[in-house]
C-alpha cells in the first residue's frame, strides 16, 4: 500500500498512465481495494439491470397488442384532476435528494465530522425508505385497483406487468438493501469504528452503492415510465 502510494504519485497520466498502471508489477487501481471491488460489483449489476431493460425493450417491440400508456397508468387523481406520472416524479426527486445527502455524508466523513456524517446517512436512509414506501403504494394501486398481473392486464400488452414487476421490483430490492446497508454503516460511524481505523473510505463505498441505485432509477424512469 505504502509502496504503491510512492509509485503512483510519480506515475504518468493519460493513456501512458493506463499502460503503466496495468503493466508494472503492482496493484492496478490506486484506490482502496474495497472501493475497487464495489466498482466491479456495480459493473456486474449494470449488466443485470441492462439485461432486464433490454428484455423489456424486446417484448415491447415484439408485441402486437398496444403497450399500455405509462403516462396514464401511473397518473394520480389529485383534486379531481388526473396528473400524469406525478408519483413517479416525486419518487425521482426523492431519490435524487437522497443522492445529494449521501454525497455530502461522504464529504463530511472525510472531514471526520462524525455527527454530520451519521445524520446525513440516516437522512439518506430515511429518504430511501420513503421511496420504497411509495413504490409499495404504487404496486398496491396497480395490483388491486388496476388489476395488473405478471401474465396480463386490462390495459393492453400482457408483457407490461411482468416487465414492470421485474424491473421495479429488482430496483426496489436494491433500495431496500441499500437502506439497511446505510443504517449499518451509519451506526459504525456513530460508534467511532472508523475513527479507530483512521479511514472513512467505507462511507464512500456505501455512497457508491447508493448513487448506483439512483443511477439505475434514471434509466428506469426514462425507458420504462417516459418512453
Amino acid at each position, binding site marked *: 500500500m505504502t509502496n504503491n502510494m510512492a509509485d*503512483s*504519485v510519480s*506515475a504518468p*497520466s*493519460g*493513456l501512458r*498512465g*493506463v499502460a503503466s*498502471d*496495468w503493466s508494472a508489477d503492482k496493484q*492496478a*487501481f*490506486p*484506490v482502496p481495494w474495497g472501493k475497487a471491488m464495489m*466498482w*466491479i460489483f456495480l*459493473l456486474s449489476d*449494470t*449488466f443485470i439491470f*441492462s439485461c432486464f431493460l*433490454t*428484455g423489456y*425493450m*424486446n417484448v*415491447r*417491440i*415484439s*408485441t*402486437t397488442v398496444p403497450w399500455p400508456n405509462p*403516462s396514464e397508468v401511473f397518473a394520480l387523481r389529485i383534486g379531481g384532476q388526473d396528473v*400524469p*406520472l406525478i408519483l413517479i*416524479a416525486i419518487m*425521482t*426527486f426523492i431519490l*435524487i*435528494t437522497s*443522492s*445529494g445527502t449521501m*454525497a*455530502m455524508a*461522504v464529504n463530511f466523513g*472525510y*472531514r471526520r465530522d462524525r455527527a454530520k456524517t451519521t445524520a446525513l446517512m440516516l437522512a439518506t436512509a430515511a429518504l430511501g425508505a420513503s421511496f420504497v414506501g411509495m413504490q409499495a403504494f404504487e404496486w398496491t394501486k396497480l395490483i388491486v385497483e388496476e388489476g395488473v398481473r405478471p401474465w396480463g392486464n386490462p390495459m393492453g400488452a400482457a408483457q407490461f406487468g411482468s416487465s414492470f414487476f421485474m424491473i421495479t421490483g429488482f430496483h426496489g430490492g436494491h433500495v431496500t438493501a441499500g437502506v439497511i446497508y446505510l443504517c449499518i454503516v451509519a451506526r459504525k460511524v456513530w460508534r467511532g469504528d472508523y475513527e479507530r481505523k483512521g*479511514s*472513512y*473510505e467505507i462511507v*464512500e463505498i456505501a*455512497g457508491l452503492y447508493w*448513487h448506483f441505485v*439512483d*443511477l439505475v432509477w*434514471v*434509466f428506469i*424512469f*426514462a*425507458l420504462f*415510465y*417516459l*418512453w
Partner: protein
Amino acid sequence: MEHAQAQQGQQHPIAIYLWIWVLLFVLSTMSYLVDYFHVHGYLRWFLIILFMLLKAGFIVAIFMHMAWERLALKFAILVPPLCLLVLVGLMAIEGDYTFLTRLASFLK
C-alpha cells in the same frame, strides 16, 4: 496531485454537490415536462435520452467521483458496458423479427 487526492479519499467543496443536485432536479423536471406536455415522436425520444444520459453522466462523474479517478479505473468500469450496445442492437432486430412473424401467423 490528482492521484494524491485519490489516495487520501475524495475531498471536494460541498458547493459542487449542491450544484449537481440542483442540476439533477432541473434535468428531472425537464424530462417530466416532456411527458406532461405530450411531446411525441423523435423529439420525445431524443429529449428523454438526452436528459437521461446527462443525469447519468453527472451522477457517475461527480457524485461517484469518477471524474477524479485515474484513467485506468475509468476504462475498467466504463468501457465494458459498451458491449451492451451490441446486445441492445441484436435484441431490437430480434424484436422486429418476432413482431413481423406474429403479424404473419396470428393476424391473418
